């Protein structure tokens, strides 16, 4: 029996414009993670990528809010793209405004 394929996890910098994703994990400190969570970027939150780049800022949209993240920060945030069948994240009903 084949082992289940692990869910795809991509650094935020590798996503493309228009991709939807959720945060899977990060290598950030607890303090930085708390700041991002307070700004609305936590594991429960689905976001849309407006701009992603390994050299420039990454811009994501969370509901009506746009967040800009430096590439150093963005590459330490691993995401689960929502069009990935393994992720299953989009199957859950997220509260929308």
């Amino acid at each position, binding site marked *: 029996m084949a082992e289940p394929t692990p869910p795809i996890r991509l650094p935020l910098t590798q996503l493309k414009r228009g991709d939807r994703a959720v945060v899977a994990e990060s290598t*950030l*400190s607890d*303090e*930085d993670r*708390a*700041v*991002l*969570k*307070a*700004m*609305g970027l936590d594991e429960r939150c689905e976001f*849309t990528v*407006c*701009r992603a780049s390994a*050299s*420039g*800022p990454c*811009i994501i*949209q969370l*509901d*009506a*809010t*746009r*967040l*800009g*993240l*430096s590439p*150093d*920060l963005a590459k330490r945030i691993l995401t689960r793209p929502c069009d990935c069948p393994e992720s299953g994240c989009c199957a859950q009903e997220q*509260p*929308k*405004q």
Partner: protein
Amino acid sequence: MTSPAAPARPVALAPTRVAMVGNPNVGKTSLFNRLCGVRAKTANFPGSTVEARVGSCVADGAELELVDLPGVYAIDLELPESKLCRDCLAGRLEGCMPDALLVVIDATNLARGLRLFRSVANAARPVAVALTMTDLARARGLSIDPARLSVALGVPCVAANGRDGTGIEPLIAAIRAAREVPPQVVAASLAASWIDETVTAIVGGPNSLGSADDRLTDRLDAAFTHPVLGSLVFLAAMATIFFAIFRLAELPMEWIESGCAWLQATLATSLPEGAISSLVTDGIVGGVSGTIVFLPQICLLFFLLALLEDTGYLARAAFVMDRIMCRFGLPGQAFVPLLSSHACALPGIMSTRLIPDPKDRLATILVAPFMSCSARVGVYVLLVSILFPNSGFLAGLAFAGCYALGAIAALATAALFRRTILKGKSRPMVLELPPYRVPDLRGALLATYDRALVFLKNAGSVILAICVVMWWISAYPKAATPEAAIAIEARAAEADARGDAPGAEELRSEAATLASRAQQEFSIAGRLGGAMQPVFEPLGLDDRLTVAVLTSFLAREVFRSTVTVLVGQGDSDDDVRVSSELARATRADGTPLFDPATTTSLLVFYVLAMQCLPTLAVTARETGSWKWAALQFCWMSSVAYLLAWLAHVAVTALLSTLVPALGGGA
């Protein structure tokens, strides 16, 4: 509609102190400005690097005291603004114990606002909610009924807009009502699913993400954060600000200078001659006018920055510059203060409040005075024209080199400080990018007014005290009028008797220069100069240049007038005449005083040295400690001395190699 800020009736009730809490960019300060207008001031609290604004308004005969706390995403974060909010809510800020809270929530981001509401509403204190950005929410197809939200939260809730003033009167009524009804939200809000359930129950309509507005925002973001296009846009924006600071401020600066000169002259003629007259005219008016002359530049800078920030552009620009600035340990937001410091370090340092991270902000404050400010320009012109009297190209190159040297020293120092004394992790560069919008002119004017008040208060306290001390050490002890000056005065009287008024005027000016030179040398400052001369000898300075350098530690522009009095034939507005006179000045041994090595070392010294007491006072104020101002002074002076000495050695060595090789004398 009656303005809520306008006093309607005499105050009858005890004031209610209301702390305003909200996420950043929710329109909290706009509401505060609408409620308080000019009846507000910036408040710094001991031990805090962030500030709040405190103001009041009177409505229906009762006074409301409002505390506009800094925008926070959560109050439990280990960030200075979160700590300030925690301290305020816990009553740990002196004189700032709130009776009630006003939580400001962005209607387009209800969930995040509710998270903050839940954390602050637990404090057993009346709470009201102001729902802002309802127009943006409507544009997205969202409908939020404040009345239903009020029921769900158990506290009064009204929609209000600080920009156009709608909902302000109901908001004041809601704050009053909150005081009479204890908050009922606490128990329900503790449930984990409370936020999702509340949002689902309250918000109606689809969130039209991907709308035309979003596509436009996408395009603008792509342009403004693009490595090349974004940099060009940023440079254009900064060039506009720079132009405004330099050019548009010129006229009002001249008015202030003329006004102060008139005041000095009037006081000099109306006060009896003596120490009091000298103290008032030279010490107080002369000293303070040297600082308040920069008020127009400060006002323009803060007005333009407030407008630019309000458009939503500045947050994008921070990312463009972050790529460059992070190599030197500074955030992207540091670029604006550093650029502004080219006009004057005072507004530059004050504008570091744009920088959220305390260590980043401190590093920027410490290095900002390295940037060549407008006060240095006069010194650069004088020394460069002595150094290259016949080559406009080389003079221009040297002039540009001064600016480059200052910028390099600033960035190198920042890199060093961030790796040593200010070592530590910066706050991650994550910023909320507010929607693009037309800036709020009223808010920008109020922000400018607030900054101008802070600056004038500083000029009227610390800077005034410093000016008086500097006046005293320059004016005392009094020197006897030199015999040569008395003789020249006698000749001036004879010239008057002959009817030669221009000749008499010239002689009196010569006598005054001699008397001024004698006073400079005899004063405490002059004696200090004499005592310190051995220290400055390696830079090629004689005792006169040492006095000129020491007296210009008050303000570097003083160098020109001091050196022309001590070395030349008296101060003059004619740059060419002054520089040619100084170029001919000699030392006791007959060699040129301003030889290339000495002139170069002086130039390097003036580029790098901290010679501006008002800047030190503002550094102390903005950092909350004279310790940092002392470090700034010592570091900049040490770097200036070392590099000026190296320049002197290098130019001396170069000339000793080149001149014999070219087969000529100097």
